[in-house]
C-alpha cells in the first residue's frame, strides 16, 4: 500500500526547508595551513592542528571568513559585527578532537533570501542563517554489507578532509509551494549552486561531496493550519535527489498519516538507487551536543568597512543576470529557464559576445550542440568547441557561405578535432557553391532530367521547384545555396 504523490497533495500541504553544506574553495584549511585539494593520498594533507593532536590550537583562516561574508551578502543576509565559534561535542572516529568547531547561536550571516524561478514565476526562499564550520574526516567502513559502520570488519579514516572550511546555509521553512514543493526545492539548490559558483567560493560539485544537502519535510492537513512533525533527510547529494527526496518523503508521510500513524522526529537516509528514505536516528536517541563558545578562538568581528569592500567586489549574481538577459535577448522566463536548465547560459552569452545574434546562439547551443552533448553524455559546456567558433559558424551561415546542413558538418569537424570552422570548411571543401555559372550547368542538367516538373513550373506551379532544387543539391553534394538555386531555376523557366 502506498499513497501516490497526487493523492498526498489532495489531503496535505507540504512544508520543506534545506540545510546545505558547502566546502569552501580556500587553498588551505580553516584552522591550519594544510592544503584542501581533493583526491590526494589519504592522510597526506594533515598536521598537528587538523589531526587535533594534544596541545595544538586552531587559528582562523581569514579567507574562509571572507568567503562566508561573500555568500551572506549574495544571499541578502545581515553580516554580524561580532560573533563567535562554538564547539559541537560528540564522539566519532572521523572527528580528530571529538568536537567540531562550528557556530551555534551566533552565526556570521542571518536573515536573507534567495529568489528562484520555477515554472515561469519567482518564489522567494528565506535564508535563516549562514555559518562557518570545519569538515570532519572521511570514514571508509570495510567488510560490511552496507558500507556503514555497523557490521563492518574494520574502518579506515582519511583526515585530509578534516578541517576544510564548510558553510552551512539554512533556509527558513518554505510554505505555500503545494504541488511544486519538490521542484522548488530542486530549483533552490540549483540557484544556490549557481550563486556559489558565480561567487567563486566553491567548486560546488555534489558528486565529490563539496555540496551536500539535508532536507527537512513536514505535512499539514489541508486547511488545518497546523504543521506536523518534521523529518530530516540526509545524504541528498544530487539535484535530482533533492527533488526525489522531498517527493518521496511527502508520499511516505502522507501514507503514515493516512494509516492513522504519527510522524516521529527523526533523521532519515535517502537512497539514490531506490529513491526512498529509510529511518536513521530518532529524536529520542538524538545527541546532546553540549555547545559552548570555543575558548581557543577569539570572537570574529568583521570590520564594517571590510564587509562593504567585499560587497563591492561581488560579481553579477544569477538573478541580476537573468533579468538582464531576459531583457536584452527578449526572452520569456520559460525560454530563459530552458537555456539555464540546459547548462548553456555561459556558452550562449559568450557566443553572443563573439558576434552571433542571440537567436542564432540559442539555436545552435540548444539544438545541434545539445544533441551532441547528450549523445556524448557530457554537459554542453564540456564540448570541445568554443563559443567563438560557434559564432563563426553562425556568421558563415548568415553570410551565405554555409547552409545549415554544411554548418552541422563544420561543427562535426570542429568536435572531431579537425581545427577551426574555417579550417574545417577548407579541409572538407564545404563552402556553398556560390558561382552562378557552376550552378547553371547543374540546373540545366536537372531541368533536362525532369522535363515534366519543368513544364509544371513554366505553367505557373512554382511550388514544384522544390524537386528541382533537391536534384541540384544532390548533384552539388549539398554545397549549393538552396535559395539561390531556387531563384536561378525560376529565372530559367520564366
Amino acid at each position: 500500500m502506498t499513497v501516490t504523490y497526487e493523492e498526498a497533495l489532495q489531503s496535505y500541504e507540504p512544508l520543506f526547508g534545506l540545510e546545505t553544506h558547502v566546502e569552501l574553495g580556500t587553498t588551505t584549511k580553516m584552522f591550519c595551513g594544510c592544503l584542501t585539494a581533493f583526491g590526494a593520498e589519504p592522510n597526506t594533507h594533515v598536521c598537528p592542528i587538523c589531526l587535533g593532536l594534544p596541545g595544538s590550537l586552531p587559528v582562523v583562516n581569514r579567507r574562509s571568513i571572507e568567503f562566508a561574508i561573500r555568500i551572506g551578502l549574495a544571499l541578502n543576509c545581515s553580516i554580524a559585527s561580532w560573533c563567535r565559534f562554538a564547539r559541537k561535542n560528540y564522539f566519532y572516529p572521523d572527528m580528530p578532537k571529538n568536537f567540531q568547531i562550528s557556530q551555534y547561536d551566533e552565526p556570521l550571516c542571518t536573515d536573507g533570501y534567495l529568489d528562484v524561478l520555477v515554472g515561469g514565476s519567482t518564489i522567494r526562499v528565506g535564508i535563516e542563517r549562514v555559518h562557518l564550520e570545519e569538515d570532519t574526516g572521511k570514514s571508509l567502513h570495510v567488510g560490511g554489507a552496507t558500507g556503514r559502520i555497523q557490521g563492518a570488519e574494520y574502518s579506515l579514516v582519511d583526515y585530509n578532509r578534516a578541517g576544510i572550511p564548510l558553510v552551512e546555509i539554512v533556509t527558513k521553512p518554505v510554505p505555500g509551494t503545494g504541488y511544486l514543493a519538490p521542484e522548488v526545492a530542486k530549483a533552490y539548490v540549483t540557484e544556490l549552486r549557481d550563486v556559489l559558483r558565480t561567487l567563486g567560493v566553491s567548486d560546488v560539485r555534489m558528486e565529490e561531496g563539496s555540496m551536500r544537502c539535508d532536507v527537512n519535510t513536514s505535512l499539514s492537513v489541508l486547511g488545518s493550519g497546523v504543521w506536523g512533525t518534521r523529518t530530516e533527510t540526509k545524504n541528498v547529494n544530487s539535484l535530482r535527489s533533492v527533488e526525489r527526496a522531498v517527493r518521496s518523503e511527502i508520499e511516505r508521510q502522507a501514507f503514515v498519516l493516512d494509516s492513522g500513524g504519527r510522524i516521529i522526529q527523526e533523521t532519515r537516509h535517502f537512497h539514490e538507487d531506490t529513491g526512498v528514505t529509510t529511518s536513521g536516528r530518532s529524536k529520542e536517541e538524538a545527541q546532546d551536543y553540549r555547545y559552548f563558545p570555543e575558548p581557543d578562538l577569539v570572537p570574529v568581528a568583521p570590520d564594517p568597512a571590510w564587509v562593504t569592500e567585499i560587497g563591492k567586489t561581488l560579481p553579477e549574481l544569477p538573478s541580476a543576470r537573468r533579468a538582464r538577459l531576459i531583457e536584452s535577448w527578449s526572452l520569456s522566463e520559460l525560454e530563459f529557464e530552458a537555456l539555464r536548465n540546459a547548462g548553456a547560459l555561459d556558452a550562449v552569452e559568450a557566443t553572443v559576445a563573439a558576434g552571433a545574434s542571440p537567436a542564432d546562439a540559442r539555436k545552435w547551443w540548444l539544438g545541434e550542440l545539445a544533441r551532441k552533448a547528450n549523445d556524448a553524455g557530457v554537459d554542453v559546456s564540456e564540448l570541445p568547441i568554443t563559443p567563438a567558433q560557434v559564432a563563426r559558424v553562425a556568421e558563415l551561415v548568415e553570410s551565405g557561405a554555409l547552409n545549415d546542413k554544411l554548418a552541422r558538418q563544420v561543427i562535426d569537424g570542429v568536435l572531431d578535432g579537425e581545427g577551426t570552422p574555417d579550417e574545417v570548411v577548407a579541409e572538407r571543401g564545404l563552402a556553398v557553391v556560390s558561382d552562378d555559372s557552376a550552378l547553371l550547368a547543374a540546373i540545366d542538367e536537372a531541368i533536362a532530367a525532369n522535363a515534366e516538373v519543368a513544364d509544371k513550373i513554366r505553367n505557373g506551379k512554382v511550388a514544384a521547384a522544390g524537386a528541382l532544387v533537391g536534384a541540384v543539391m544532390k548533384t552539388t553534394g549539398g554545397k549549393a545555396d538552396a535559395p539561390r538555386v531556387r531563384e536561378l531555376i525560376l529565372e530559367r523557366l520564366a
Partner: protein
Amino acid sequence: MDDLTTMTAAELAAAVAAGSVSAAEVTQAHLDRITAVDGAVRAFLHVNGEDALAQARAVDRKRAAGEPLGALAGVPVAVKDLFTTIGSPATCGSKILEGWYPPYESTITGRLREAGAILIGKTNMDEFAMGSSTENSGYGPSHNPWDLDRVPGGSSGGSAAAVAAYEAPLALGTDTGGSIRQPAAVCGIVGAKPTYGGSSRYGVVAFASSLDTPGPFGRTVLDAALLHEAMSGHDPMDSTSIDAPVPPVVAAARHGDVAGLRIGVVTDLSGEGYQPGVMSRFTEAIEVLESLGAKVTELSCPHFKYALPAYYLIAPSECSSNLARFDGMRYGLRTGTGSAEEIMAETRAAGFGAEVKRRIMLGTYALSSGYYDAYYGKAQQVRTLIIQDFEAAFGQVDVLVSPVTPTTAFRIGERADDPMAMYLADLCTIPSNLAGNAAISVPCGLADEDGLPVGLQVMAPPLADDRLYRVGAAVEAAFTTRWGHPLLTEAKGLIRS
C-alpha cells in the same frame, strides 16, 4: 667554585657566556643532582640525559664559534610534562598518553631552545593539570623537598620540586587555577602566572583553554623574570595570544622598589580556613612593604567568594571537551575490542584517573542541554563580576596582595579522599585565572607551627606583569637581608652536602 647546581640561572648564564664554565658541565652537574636526589623527590617523569648533553654541547660549540648566545644559554630548564617537545614523551601525568612522543614542538620550548636553554627533562604533574598536590599523577606523587612526606603542591608540583631540590634552576609550569603559584608557595620558591595571552599555549596540552597560562619557576625573582621574558611574546599560532610588547619583567626584577606604590590587601582572601602561621607571615610581608615606602590599604572584592564555584563549573566544562580527543583511536593508550564506541569507552575508563573522570562528568553535566544556563552560563556571569571587581580595585591601587594558599604543604594522602579540601588550596589563586590578569608567588617566610614555607601573592592588571617583579624583588631583598640567607637554604627534607 660554587656547586653549579646552587647557582642561580642568572649566574649560570653569565658564567657560560663568559666561558668560565661550559654548558655541558652545567648540564652534567644537574643530571648528577637528579640522579642523586630524584629517587626521593620524584620530580621528573622523564630525564633527557644524552639529549640534554647534546643540547649543551651545541651551546658550547656556538660559543666557541663566537656566535651570539641567547639569554638562557647553558641554563637547564625542567619542563612540565604537558608541553610538547620533540624527542621526549608528553604524558601529562596520565596513563592515557603513556608512550606518546609528540611530533611537534611547543612555541615556548622552541623559544627556550632558541635562547640556549637546556631542556633537561619532563616533570611530574597532576593528571592533565587537575589537582593541587601531584597525587593525581598516573605515575605516583612527587615529594616536597622541605619534607618528603608532604606534597609539593600542584598541579605543577614536579616543576616546583625540581627547582626547590636544585635539580634545575628554572622550570616551566602552567597555571589554570593556581597550579604554578600554589606549588611555588609550598616549596618556598618563586612562581608566576603571566597575563593570560602573554605566554603561548601552542603545544601546551589543554586542561581549561580560557584559564591555562604557562609560566616560570625560579629560586629567585630575577631568575623567574629571565624565564618569563624568554618564554613570552605574541604567537600567531595561538589566537588568544596578545599582540603586545612583553612587559619589562627582567628590568623590574633588577630594580625592586615599592616606594610610593599603592598596594591593596584583599580582605576577602583571609579569615576562616587560613592557617595562623600563613596569616602571620602574610601580615609580616605587608609590614615589610610598608616599611619600604608602599602605601598599603585594605579593600574588598565582594565577588571573589564565588570564584571557586564558578571555576569548578568553567574549568570542568572546558576540560570535558578538551579531553574528548583521548579516545584510543589515534595515539596513546588503546584498550578493549569490539566497536569503535566500545574501544573509546574502555580506553577512557582505563586511561583516566578518578579526578579527571570526576571533572569530565562535572563538565559534561554543566554543559548539558537544560543545565547550561544554570551552570556554565551563570559561572560566566560570575566571571564577569570578578573581572569588574579587579577593575574597580586596580582603579584604586597598583597591585593587590593576599596569601597564595590558605595552608602550608599538607601530608601526602591527607586530602586525597576529600576533593573539596583539595579544591580549597586554590581559593586565593583562582580569581586571577578567571580574570586573566598577572600574579606571582614570592616566599615570605616559614609558618611558626610547622616550619614550612609560605608565599605572598601579588596580583597586577593584565599586561602589568612587571609590577609583580618590582614588588617581588623588593620583598625578596628585604627578607633575604632579614634572614641573612635565602629561605630555601633552610629546607630540611634534602640536606645538601
